[in-house]
């Protein structure tokens, strides 16, 4: 039995593999292989499209599906209304896309596919900082563009809070500038780390179950069952984290946009 000792690599789930022999697709020398990560991005986008399309019946008295879609758009609308104000309305499409895409990617990455035996397992694209980082940079660029477009060079006053004593201004300016520039990193890393940590934890607990069962029935019962119960609890927690991280990403993006729209 020792030969069949499961070698569970908790990081394997994050490995990116090209699919459909697309490993060598290139544009201008850059590899654009259609990987499993891309596949799950597509699945998230298509699922989101189906979800929103189901709410497009435009009925006066909404059905359940339409109600669900409208509650999401209303949620984002309220979020922007509360954080940015009247000008926030025009960011609803962006924040909605951001929130829903991340939410769908997070949740779909948690789906325990019964095809795992065949080597097909869900892939959490949001556990890659190449993805979360790009989304964070897009949010950051929107803040920069809107800020400089609306306030021109006056936008730099964002880095000098009201009532700063004159001698402190250079130092405060540098500190605020650094904290401003760190935003895209913190935004991207937060989502990537939260998603990765949860999945690693689940995988490690799963390996406990497998290894304990392989070591004997006694170990299997003693270690495997508590581990499995813990996995269930953490799965529930992960669903919560998936929603919260999407919300945090959208919330922080809207707060940063508020800085750009209204300065202080």
């Amino acid at each position, binding site marked *: 039995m020792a030969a069949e000792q499961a070698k569970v690599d908790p*990081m*394997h789930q*994050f*490995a*990116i593999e090209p699919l459909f022999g697309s490993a060598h*697709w290139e*544009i201008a020398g*850059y*590899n*654009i*292989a*259609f*990987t499993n*990560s*891309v596949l799950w*991005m*597509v699945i*998230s*986008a298509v699922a*989101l*499209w189906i979800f*929103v*399309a189901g*709410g*497009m019946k*435009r*009925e*006066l008295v*909404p059905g359940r599906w*339409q109600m669900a*879609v*409208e509650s999401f*758009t*209303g949620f984002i*609308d309220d979020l922007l209304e509360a954080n940015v104000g009247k000008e926030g309305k025009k960011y*609803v*499409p*962006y924040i*909605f*896309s951001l929130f*829903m*895409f991340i939410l769908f990617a997070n949740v779909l990455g948690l789906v325990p596919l019964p095809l795992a035996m065949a080597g097909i397992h869900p892939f959490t694209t949001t*556990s*890659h*900082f*190449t*993805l979360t980082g*790009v*989304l964070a940079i*897009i949010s950051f660029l929107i803040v920069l563009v809107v800020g400089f477009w609306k306030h021109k060079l006056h936008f730099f006053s964002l880095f000098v809070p009201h009532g700063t004593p004159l001698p402190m201004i250079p130092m405060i300016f540098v500190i605020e500038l650094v904290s401003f520039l760190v935003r895209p990193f913190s935004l991207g890393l937060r989502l*990537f780390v939260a998603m*990765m940590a949860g999945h690693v934890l689940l995988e490690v607990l799963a390996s406990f179950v497998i290894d304990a069962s392989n070591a004997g029935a006694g170990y299997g019962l003693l270690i495997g069952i508590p581990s499995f119960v813990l996995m269930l609890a953490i799965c529930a927690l992960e669903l919560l984290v998936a929603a919260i991280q999407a919300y945090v990403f959208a919330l922080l993006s809207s707060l940063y946009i508020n800085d750009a729209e209204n300065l202080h």
Partner: protein
Amino acid sequence: MPQIAQLAETYSSQIFWLLVIFGFVFFVIGKGMVPKVMGTVELRDKQIGADLAAAQDARNQANAEEEAWRKRENENRAQAQALVAQAKVDAAAASEKKLSAAQKRIDKKMADAEAKIADARAAALVELETVASEAAQTIVEKLAGVSVPAASASSAVKKVLSNG
């Protein structure tokens, strides 16, 4: 950690496809579908608001009509009460008049009766005087044997009567 180990070989495909897919999500779903969904919500809110306003208007109108009706009703009632009061006053006046007329008639009858009584009394007094003077005349004649003329007897009697 594949995220870092595979970074060099996968970053371009990750970024490229993310931009393509997120572009699709943003332009098709965010820009294309979300405004329609929100438009529906707005339309519904507007409709509900309009319906509520219409209901409020109808309610206000009903209240105003009821108020007007109540006013009219009160006026009618006041009019009716005024009529009743007027009729009462008229009736009272009429009965007053009748009563006073009757009183007058009664007073007149009483006055007449009193006058008659007074006349009878005066006549009786005059008769008494005559009888008294004749009686005095006769008494004087019998007692003193003096014949007294009727005139002096009558004046003597009158004197006594008026003193008495």
